[in-house]
C-alpha cells in the first residue's frame, strides 16, 4: 500500500468512528451525560483552557510523569545492566525481584500516601515503580543477549577492562533492547499517572474524578483524549530520537 493511501484510510477510520459516535450521541437514545457527543469537545477544551484548569492539570501530570519516568528508567536500566553483568548482584537480588515484581504499581498507593502524603512525590513514586520493572527486565535481557563473539572481538583488539567492554560493546549492543524498554515505560507511565492522581493528587486524574462526580462527562472525555494526545506526542518524539540513535539498524 502506498503511504498516501495508508494515511487516507487511517484518517477515514478515525473520522468514521467520530461520526458514528456523534450520530449515536445525537440520536437521543442515551442521556447526554452517558455519552457526550464529540462535537462538545472543542467547546469544553476552550472553557477548560479559559479557566486555566487544562494547562494546570496537564502541567501537573506532566511533572509527576516526567519525574517518575526519569527515576524509574534510570534505576531500572542501571540495576538491569548490573544484574546482567555481575552474577553476585544477580544472585543477591533474584528472590527480592521475584517477591516485588508481581506487585502492581497501584498496590503501592496506600504506602505512597502514608509515606509522602497526597503529594507530587507520591504520584511520581507510583509512576516510577511500573517504569522501573519494565526497564529492569528489558535492560537485563538486552545485555544478556549481546553477541559474545563481538565481546571477543573487542577483547582481541585490546579492549579488556569491564569499563572498556561496556563502552565499546555491551552498551551499544544492548541499546536497541534498552530503548524499546524505555519506550514501553513511556506508555506504562501514562497509564499509572491517572490512576495515581485519582486519589486526590492534583493532575489530570484528579480533574477527571472531580468532573465525573458532577456528571460533566464531556470533561472526562476531554481529559481522556488529552492523555492520548500527550502519549502520542511523547512517543513520537521518542521514536524520532530512537531511530536517530539506532540509525545503524537495518
Amino acid at each position, binding site marked *: 500500500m502506498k503511504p498516501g493511501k495508508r494515511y487516507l484510510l487511517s484518517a477515514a477510520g478515525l473520522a468514521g468512528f467520530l461520526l458514528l459516535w456523534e450520530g449515536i450521541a445525537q440520536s437521543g437514545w442515551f442521556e447526554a451525560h452517558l455519552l457526550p457527543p464529540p462535537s462538545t469537545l472543542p467547546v469544553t477544551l476552550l472553557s477548560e483552557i479559559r479557566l486555566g484548569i487544562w494547562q494546570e492539570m496537564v502541567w501537573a501530570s506532566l511533572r509527576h510523569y516526567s519525574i517518575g519516568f526519569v527515576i524509574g528508567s534510570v534505576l531500572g536500566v542501571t540495576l538491569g545492566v548490573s544484574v546482567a553483568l555481575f552474577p553476585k548482584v544477580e544472585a543477591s537480588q533474584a528472590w527480592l525481584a521475584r517477591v516485588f515484581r508481581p506487585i502492581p504499581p497501584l498496590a503501592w498507593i496506600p504506602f505512597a500516601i502514608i509515606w509522602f502524603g497526597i503529594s507530587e512525590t507520591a504520584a511520581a513514586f507510583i509512576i516510577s515503580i511500573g517504569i522501573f520493572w519494565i526497564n529492569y527486565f528489558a535492560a537485563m535481557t538486552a545485555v544478556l543477549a549481546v553477541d559474545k*563473539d*563481538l565481546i*571477543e*572481538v573487542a*577483547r582481541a*583488539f*585490546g579492549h579488556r577492562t569491564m569499563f572498556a567492554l561496556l563502552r565499546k560493546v555491551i552498551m551499544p*549492543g544492548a*541499546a536497541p533492547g534498552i530503548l524499546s524498554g524505555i519506550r514501553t515505560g513511556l506508555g506504562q507511565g501514562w497509564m499509572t499517572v491517572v490512576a495515581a492522581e485519582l486519589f486526590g493528587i492534583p493532575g489530570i486524574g484528579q480533574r477527571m474524578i472531580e468532573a465525573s462526580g458532577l456528571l460533566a462527562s464531556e470533561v472526562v472525555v476531554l481529559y481522556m483524549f488529552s492523555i492520548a494526545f500527550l502519549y502520542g506526542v511523547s512517543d513520537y518524539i521518542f521514536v524520532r530520537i530512537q531511530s536517530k540513535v539506532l540509525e545503524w539498524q537495518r
Partner: protein
Amino acid sequence: MATVIQTDNLAVSFDGVTPVFEGLTLAIEKGEFVSLVGVSGAGKSTLLRVIADLIPAFKGSVRVDTPSDPTRRAIAMVFQAANLMPWRSVEDNITLGLEGIDVSDRLKKERVRWTLDLVGLGNYADRWPYQLSGGQQQRIGIARALAVDPDILLMDEPFGSLDAITRNALQDELLHIWKETGKSILFVTHDIEEAVYLGDRVLLLGGEPAHIINEYSIGIERTERRESEAFLRKVEKVRGGLQDAINVTLSAH
C-alpha cells in the same frame, strides 16, 4: 630469520583436567605464511586464542614478539564471521583496535585509507556493516586487523562461510596483501586446498591429546599452485595425513 611466535609444550584446558591439546611446540618465523589444518575438535581455533591471549595457557608457554612502536599491536585476529560491530560505520570498525593505543587522528585516517585501499573498498568508509555483502564484511574484518599494523595476523577460517568465487578472490587478495606488507600469518582452515594454496608450510594438528603431528613444506611457486600437478599431489599428501590422523582418533574411541 627471527621467530615471531614460539610456543613450548603448550596445553590448554577448559575444565582444568582434560587438555584440548598438549605438548604443542611450534615456531613461526617473521614474514612466514603458515596454514594450520587438523582433526575437528583438536583445538585449531583454541590455539589462535591462546596465542592472542584471549584464553590462558594451562601448561607450557607462548612467546610473542612485541613491536617497540606504540602505534602498532603485536597481533591482530580475523574471525570466521567478520563480526563487525553493527553500530559502527566501516571506518569506525577499522579503527576499533587503534582506540587505546598511541595513534594520532591523522595516523588513524591514514591507516583507514591504507587498509581500505588494500582490501579494495576505498569508497566504503561511511557505510554501515549491514549494507555490505558477506565478502565485503570479511574484507573489512581484514582491514580492521591490518589497521593496527600487526607483525602477526591470526586468521580463524576467515573465508569458511563465503561462496567459492568470493573465497578464491579473497585468497588471492590475502596473498597480495601478505607480499605487500610482509606480515607473518597463521591461518586456520578446514579446507586443505586452501591451506596448501596459501601456506609456505602446512601444520597438521591431531592425535590424542592433540599436538602437531606433521608438517608439510609446500615449496611450489604460488603462481603454479591452483592447478598444477605438483600442487594437486601436495594436496593429496596433506589430505592423506589428515585422514590418517582422523582414523587414529576414531580408533582411539
